[in-house]
C-alpha cells in the first residue's frame, strides 16, 4: 500500500513539478536570455512551438503512466485484461504524431534557410573577418579602402562592434582548433572550423552589449574564451571605426 502511494506520488510529481519548474523558471532567470536579433524571434517561436507540442505529450504520457500505475496496482485477484494490442490504436498513435512531426519539421525549414542558406545572405562585402584562436577573439575590419588583406586593415581584440538594425555579414575563421562563435542573445552559433572560412550573418535589433561565448571545447582555456558584441548606432559605429583607424594605423593582418 505504502509502495503504491509512494510510486503514484512520484510519478505524478514528474509532470506536475516538471511543468511547474518550466513555468516559474523565468522568475529565477533560468530561462532564455532575451532575444535581440531578427531570427531570434523565429527561433524562439519555433522553440515555443515545440515546447507546446512536447509539453502536451509530456503531460499526456506521464499522467497516463501515473494513472495506470495507480489504478491498476489495486489489489485484485482477477486476471488482467487479455489483449495483444489493437490495430486501430496503433494506427492512431502512429498517424497523429507522424502528422505533427512532419508539420514541425516543415516549420523549421524557412528559418533554417534564412540563417544558413547562401541565398539569404546579405549582399556585398563582409563587415569583418573574425578570427578565433586559443583563447581569444580577434576582429578584422577592412579599413578605409573597404577591402580586406590590405595594409590598412583594422584589428581589434575581444570586442566586436556592429551597427544596429543592419544585416551584418562576417567571415569566421579559426587559427588552431575548433571554436564556436556563439551569441546567445542573437540565437546565433557557428563553429569556427579550422581550414574553413564560414560566412555568418545576423541583424541585431537593439543597442547594447552582448556576451560572445566560445561554445566548442577548444582546450583548457575554453571556459574563459569570452568576447563581447557591442551593437551601436550607425553614428557610433562610424565613430568607433574612425577611432580604431587612428589607433591602429598600419597594423595590418593578412586576410
Amino acid at each position, binding site marked *: 500500500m505504502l509502495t503504491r502511494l509512494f510510486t503514484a506520488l512520484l510519478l505524478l510529481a514528474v509532470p506536475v513539478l516538471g511543468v511547474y519548474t518550466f513555468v516559474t523558471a523565468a522568475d529565477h532567470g533560468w530561462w532564455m536570455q532575451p532575444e535581440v536579433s531578427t531570427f531570434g524571434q523565429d527561433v524562439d517561436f519555433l522553440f515555443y512551438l515545440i515546447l507546446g507540442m512536447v509539453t502536451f505529450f509530456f503531460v499526456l504520457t506521464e499522467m497516463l503512466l501515473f494513472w495506470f500505475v495507480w489504478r491498476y496496482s489495486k489489489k485484485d485477484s482477477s486476471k488482467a485484461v487479455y489483449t495483444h494490442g489493437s490495430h486501430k490504436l496503433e494506427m492512431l498513435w502512429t498517424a497523429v504524431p507522424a502528422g505533427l512531426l512532419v508539420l514541425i519539421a516543415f516549420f523549421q525549414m524557412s528559418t533554417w534557410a534564412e540563417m544558413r542558406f547562401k541565398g539569404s545572405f546579405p549582399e556585398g562585402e563582409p563587415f569583418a573577418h573574425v578570427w578565433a584562436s586559443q583563447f581569444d577573439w580577434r576582429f578584422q575590419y577592412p579599413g578605409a579602402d573597404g577591402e580586406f588583406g590590405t595594409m590598412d586593415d583594422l584589428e581589434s581584440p575581444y570586442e566586436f562592434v556592429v551597427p544596429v538594425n543592419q544585416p551584418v555579414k562576417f567571415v569566421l*575563421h579559426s587559427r588552431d582548433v575548433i571554436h564556436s562563435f556563439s551569441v546567445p542573445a542573437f540565437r546565433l552559433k557557428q563553429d569556427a572550423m579550422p*581550414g*574553413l*572560412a*564560414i*560566412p555568418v550573418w545576423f541583424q541585431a535589433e537593439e543597442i547594447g552589449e552582448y556576451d560572445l561565448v566560445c561554445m566548442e571545447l577548444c582546450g583548457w582555456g575554453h571556459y574563459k574564451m569570452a568576447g563581447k558584441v557591442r551593437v551601436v548606432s550607425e553614428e557610433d559605429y562610424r565613430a568607433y571605426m574612425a577611432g580604431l583607424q587612428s589607433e591602429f594605423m598600419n597594423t595590418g593582418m593578412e586576410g
Partner: protein
Amino acid sequence: MSGDHNTFNATRVLILLAVLTAVEVGWALVHEPLGIGIWPMRLGLIFLAIWKGYLIFMFFMHMKFEGWILKGLMVPTLPLMCIVVFANMPDTSFNDKIVYPIGSMASSDGAEVVELEDVSEMRGVLPHNAASHEAGGH
C-alpha cells in the same frame, strides 16, 4: 554447401581476372596517348574493378551459390557505403568554404602554401619517386 550444382570453373575465373587486371593496367596507361579524358578513364577503371570484385565475391567466395540469408547479410553494406561516402562529399570534396585546398601544405614559416602535387618538392623530396626506378619501372 559443397553440392555439385554449385561448382564453377575456377580456372576460367582466374583467367578472366588476370585478363581484366591486364586490361585495367593497359587502360590506365593508354588513356593519355589516346586522348581519353580522365573521367572516362576512371569510370572505366571503376567498372573493371567492380567487375573483378564481383567475380571474386560471386565465385571464389561462393556467394552465387548461397541462399538469401547470407546474401541478405551483405546487402545493408551497400547503401551504408554510399551513405558514408556521399554524406562526406559536400563537406570535404566539394566545399566552397575551404580556405586552402585539401591536400595542400604550408611551408614551415607559414608564408607559402602549395598544393598537394608540389608538397614533396617543397619539403625537399624527389617528386618522381625513386622507388619506381629501382624496382624496375621506367
